């Protein structure tokens, strides 16, 4: 008996130490590449959203959930992450459906262009924040590049151990940090860098989206149909990466065939009143807050008029949650504006 106890204590102690070490070595995404925190933040939410966005940076930098609440009364959340691949979007959606059932899901179709796993670093940012579920496991298997191993997702220490020589104070300070830093998945920027001489697309050998991409788009369509969710495909207005007419054609056709709504914001730049001198912070790749407001307005109007989603203003619980959120949002906005002036 005593012997058993001895071993139990030893193993428990070792596991605790390993847990701490692992936490210590994981990137904190606090002062740098903050987008790494996006996926995990979702679980801190009260999960009762009307609209859920999935997709890459073209969603989390272009749409402003705070505005969808204030102006339309829609409670929305963006499950976006950097270079989120289509199967990652699918599995993030699948994962979210375990907790809630939104009325509308919006997916940005740019990631159709990637038929295979791309970069390990982006995989990590899109997957690591997920809670463990079958969706996460499937997501990992769908996303791994040839040099990755499943076990390195289970024990991220095996992946990040090489950070031993780069550990900083930040890693200790924020070791258990779960603070929310984004606004319902929105990444806010207020600075501007005009879009000039945006390069056109290079000629591609093949414009056909891959089978794998279509497979997951089909799965997403099916998942939404089964759950009675309105799936809206969008193409954000970002000028770059270039969106080819051949791609546009395929998406339009797909939407038609599957009876989906498809909004290409690239064609709606004038209607949205986008000004590429002021509304982007990186010369046309992503919108800043000003551009985001314009696009969000179009989307909000569209959902209100075309889908008829009801406003939830007046819902006490939501109002309370959003009052807090808006306070944070506004102070963040003020800080950013002040910072910009200070420069």
């Amino acid at each position, binding site marked *: 008996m005593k012997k058993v106890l*001895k071993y139990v204590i030893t193993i428990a102690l070792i596991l605790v130490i390993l847990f701490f*070490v692992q936490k210590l070595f994981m990137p904190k995404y606090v002062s740098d590449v903050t987008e790494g925190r996006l996926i995990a933040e979702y679980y801190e939410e009260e999960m009762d959203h009307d609209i859920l966005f999935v997709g890459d940076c073209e969603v989390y930098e272009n749409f402003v959930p705070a505005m969808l609440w204030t102006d339309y009364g829609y409670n929305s959340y963006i499950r976006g992450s950097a270079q989120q691949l289509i199967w990652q979007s699918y599995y993030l959606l699948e994962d979210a459906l375990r907790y809630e059932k939104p009325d509308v899901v919006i997916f940005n179709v740019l990631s159709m262009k990637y038929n295979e796993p791309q970069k390990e670093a982006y995989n990590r940012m899109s997957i690591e924040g997920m809670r463990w579920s079958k969706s996460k496991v499937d997501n990992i298997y769908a996303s791994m590049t040839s*040099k*990755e191993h499943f076990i390195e997702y289970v024990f991220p220490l095996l992946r*990040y151990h*090489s950070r031993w*020589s780069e550990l900083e104070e930040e890693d200790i300070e924020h070791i258990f940090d779960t603070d929310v830093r984004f606004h319902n998945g929105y990444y806010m920027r207020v600075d501007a860098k005009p879009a000039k001489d945006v390069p056109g697309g290079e000629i591609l050998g093949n414009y056909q989206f891959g089978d794998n991409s279509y497979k997951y788009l089909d799965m997403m369509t099916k998942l939404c149909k089964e759950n009675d969710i309105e799936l809206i495909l969008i193409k954000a207005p970002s000028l770059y990466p270039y969106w080819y007419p051949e791609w546009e054609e395929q998406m339009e056709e797909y939407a038609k065939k599957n009876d989906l709504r498809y909004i290409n914001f690239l064609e709606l730049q004038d209607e949205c009143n986008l000004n590429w001198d002021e509304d982007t912070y990186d010369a046309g790749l992503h919108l800043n807050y000003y551009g985001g407001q314009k696009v969000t307005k179009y989307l909000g109007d569209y959902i209100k008029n075309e889908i008829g989603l009801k406003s939830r203003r007046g819902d006490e619980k939501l109002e309370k949650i959003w009052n807090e959120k808006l306070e944070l949002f506004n102070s963040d906005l003020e800080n950013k504006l002040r910072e910009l002036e200070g420069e």
Partner: protein
Amino acid sequence: MLFTSYEFIGFITVLFILFYAIPKRFQWILLLAGSYIFYYLARPVYVAYIFTTTLVVYLVALKLDQKRAFQEAYLKEHKDELTKEEKKAFKAKEKKSRFHWMLLGLLVGLGILAVIKYTNFTISNINGILSAFGSSATLSFVDIVVPMGISFYTFQAIGYLIDVHRGTIKAQRNFFKFALFVSFFPQLVQGPISRYQDLSETLYKEHKFDSKMFTFGLERILWGFFKKLVIADRMLIGVNALIKDADTYKGAYVFVGMLFYALELYCDFTGGIDITIGVAQCLGVNVTENFMRPFFSKNIKEYWNRWHITMGSWFTDYIFYPITVCGPMLKISKWSRNHLGETIGKRVPIYLSSFVVWFTTGIWHGASWNFIVWGLGNFVVIMISQEFEPLYHRFHNKFHLENNRPYQGFQVIRTVLLMSCLRTFDCYRDVPLTFKMFGTMFTEGNYNVIFDGSLLNIGLKISDFIILFIGVIILFMVSMFQRKESVREQIYRISYPLKVCIWFGLFLMVIIFGIYGIGYDATQFIYNQF
């Protein structure tokens, strides 16, 4: 499947559990299945090679045993009818016939090895000769897959065959048991080259779980991982940087690279062997030790008795002695003693067979000239030191250096340096370049780069050097503890909390400071290809 891969760890974990879970009489069958799966996973076609060698050697060994039994039976039956001379003649005839059978086995086993490993080397040499004679004709290289560990299992099988021929062991009648002897997976990748009489003692036995031995095995595996991942692979980053840009890294860099390579090779190779022996030990199988702290040797000869021991003794038993005492060599011996005088004469056979051994050792390591030159370099150094031995002896006696500590230290360092120098041949893998680079150590005069931070440009950060330094200290301390008795026995006796701290500390060091994963790309064991 590399030893340092998640797959391997998973593989042995499953194997260990199964091994002690199934009925004990099936344990060796599990090992055989595991070994073939291991080999199959590396590349399915490998199985065909190892199976062929196994089958041929198995059959020939059986035949040899049969013939020996026949001879005995015949002599017994005709005991009274035959004269002594007739008996002798019969024996001689039988011996010759057995010899021919063994030769057949050798030809097949070595033939496969030779064709696979040396065809392209031969072609490239023929091409070299052709072009030297102004011919523009060239032979094209053939595309051959070199099966993992082919040299090791071939040598093991051939050692067995020769032993059966000599009558020192009886042939294994069970084909599957013999197949396990040839293919036992822990030593398939990089040796050691086990002898049948050693390995068979524990290989087929029924093993009860022995927690002490199992712990020892795991400790050994962990220690191997430490040497390989924390030290060797870290050094390899630097070594590769230095070798790949030979134009930039001359002089002092060659010196640093030389020492780094020596230590890297040591940690890589012995680390791999530690994992091999550890895994085998967890399975209750005793595999012969392959190293005995070689870097503490006082001379090259001693070094070779302590480094890659099983290979050295294989060459001694199956090549060196047979050549030295074969008929023609005895004639040469007699002739040279008569014509060249006793002193030189008695050296001739040894020199000749040593030459053959070291040439073979070189070419066994790799089918290229740099390895051959490296092997012959060892030959020259060993012969010279052997010749000077009486002189040394007198010198030592005169100054009472035999048990003088500082002098022993000097001898050890001298040996390490000498070995490291020779190793530069398989570092640069190009004979003329090696000579050139070696020369720059004495001409470049840039030894200040060792201290002025230039070494931080070879892919290693200051933090890496600190880890290397600590790693080498640990290595040295362990070697010191080893002098007394097995370090694991010493750990076994200390208190439980301290024990756990040592294990867990080592484990954490491997996990954190090991060079593996996406952050780094683990390199293959150097000895894998040999």
